[in-house]
């Protein structure tokens, strides 16, 4: 068994209004960063998962996302394990 560092990125689904992202975008524009558009804001979670393999760690993290970390109605997520990305 080894410990794998799993990073989880949870984002509001693209079709849904993201008022926090919009507020950040307006603030950036107010600061003169006019080149920025379509700012969206989500969550980034870092987990340490003990598992027999990288694939097992990924499968367990995916189960955690489906069960708790992301809301399937409103959010999408992707995962990265120890530097290598997977979806």
């Amino acid at each position: 068994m080894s410990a794998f560092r799993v990073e989880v990125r949870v984002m509001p689904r693209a079709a849904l209004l993201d008022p926090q992202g919009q507020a950040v975008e307006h603030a950036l524009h107010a600061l003169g960063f006019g080149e920025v558009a379509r700012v969206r804001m989500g969550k980034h979670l870092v987990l340490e998962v003990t598992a027999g393999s990288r694939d097992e760690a990924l499968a367990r993290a995916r189960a955690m996302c489906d069960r708790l970390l992301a809301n399937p109605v409103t959010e999408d997520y992707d995962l990265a394990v120890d530097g290598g990305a997977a979806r």
Partner: protein
Amino acid sequence: MKRVAVVVFPGSNCDAETLAAARAAGSDAYFVWHRDTDLRQADVVILPGGFSYGDYLRSGAIARFSAVMGAVAEHAHAGGAVLGICNGFQILCEAGLLPGALMRNARLRFLSRPVWVRVEQTDTPFTSLYEKGEVLEIPVAHGDGRYVVDPRTAAELEATDRVVWRYVRENPNGSTSEIAGVTNAGRNVVGIMPHPERRDAPALGGQDGARVFHSMEARHATQHAVDVRAVDDRHLRV
């Protein structure tokens, strides 16, 4: 007299008013702690408003895994009446007992003020004493009140008359189709964002919310939901 279990989570803050509103309507209401798994023969379960677990991760996301929620789901699946108010609505959505989810208000601000809702459906255990189309003034107090649901489910909710309350005059939080409250396919589980327990007496500025609780006691309130009583862990239809 109905037995009404008001579930208390860490961070619930409308539990006392909800208990008082149910008692004022004549119910035998009592608290059930979130770690309990026994609803003590409840006829009705109410998940009150508040900020269970500090709204960490998402509103209701942690509370929905509380020990008591297994019993609440069992009660709901057996046809027992369940009402979620504000945070209780969020918990029922997270638990999958109601469709959709509640997201951050469209204009971000936490809203604590009266709004107006129209009663769309009266064949639920919590609206039987209202008239269809009646407009009620009831306060909201939420930061995550924007009801969101995928277009297919939204169409299904409309086609099967499952939108129970709709905001009128304004849409305070950007909810899909001005939805303020919904029910499940069995019409026994109901969620509402505004707080009817905060408008159940003239001294509170109005009593438009009182009939939510009186409806539980009304005889015909059980016409559409099977009257279920849990005895020795078995649900008996009576």
